């Protein structure tokens, strides 16, 4: 099933505030609009309690800084039509391995 993806005004503001490099921002767009909807079973972690909620995670390597990873977490909910994925909020962090 092809899922539609919608972003809340909250996550939109959050992503803007993260001030991501252009390439990482494009990668996040592709993750949320192509990768995630194409295979929700693989890309979503179900949290069973206290409610049935979903988290999508992705990591992207910084193209300009060696060893730097950009890690993202998005809270996702299915719409009542079960086709729309609502991305309500998220979190972002960078880590350096080298």
């Amino acid at each position, binding site marked *: 099933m092809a899922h539609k*993806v919608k972003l809340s005004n909250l996550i*939109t503001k959050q992503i803007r505030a993260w001030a991501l490099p252009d390439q990482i921002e*494009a990668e996040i767009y592709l993750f949320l609009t192509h990768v995630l909807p194409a295979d929700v079973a693989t890309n979503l972690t179900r949290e069973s309690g206290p*409610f049935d909620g979903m988290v999508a*995670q992705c990591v992207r390597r910084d193209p300009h800084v060696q060893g730097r990873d950009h890690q993202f977490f998005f809270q996702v*909910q299915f719409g009542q039509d079960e086709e729309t994925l609502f991305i309500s909020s998220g979190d972002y*962090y960078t*880590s350096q*391995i080298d």
Partner: protein
Amino acid sequence: MSAEMIVATIRKQFEMAGEALTESKPKESQPAETARYSEDAILFFLDRPATLRRLVEHVWATQRAGRVPDPLPLWLNVSVLFQLALRQANSLRESIAFARAGGFRVEREEEFERTVREIEALRGEFQKPFFFKASEGEREAALGLEYLDADEAFAHIAGVDVETWRQRMAEYERHRQG
């Protein structure tokens, strides 16, 4: 000692062990030395699952007790430890394969592979972002937010109109695939 300090200490240990292993690695043309080196390096490696298991359980317990004000950085720093351990394992696996290809058997190779599988399994357990919970009220609030189509939202984030954003992404995808 706080969970953050324990993570930082273990990371230093892993990094120092990694440096020592890199420095003492024989040249690639010496399979006999590489076999001996691999056997020594495996010994370094065998206690990794126990160390990581203790750490993960400590992090879970500390988080459950509400003593981690910001769990995300801690969770990510522990994830980095798994990456480091598995990266070192890959390097060691290459050395073992090189020694084997040169006709030299490496003692404890199976034990090493079992250790790597234990680390991978533990990482799988830890990988789930256990702290990401929301109350029913928060869920209702999330559904009550205003939502935009993804193209519209990202155009807004980038400060351009939707058509410009779509063209930019089409171009990016072409560049990425090429």
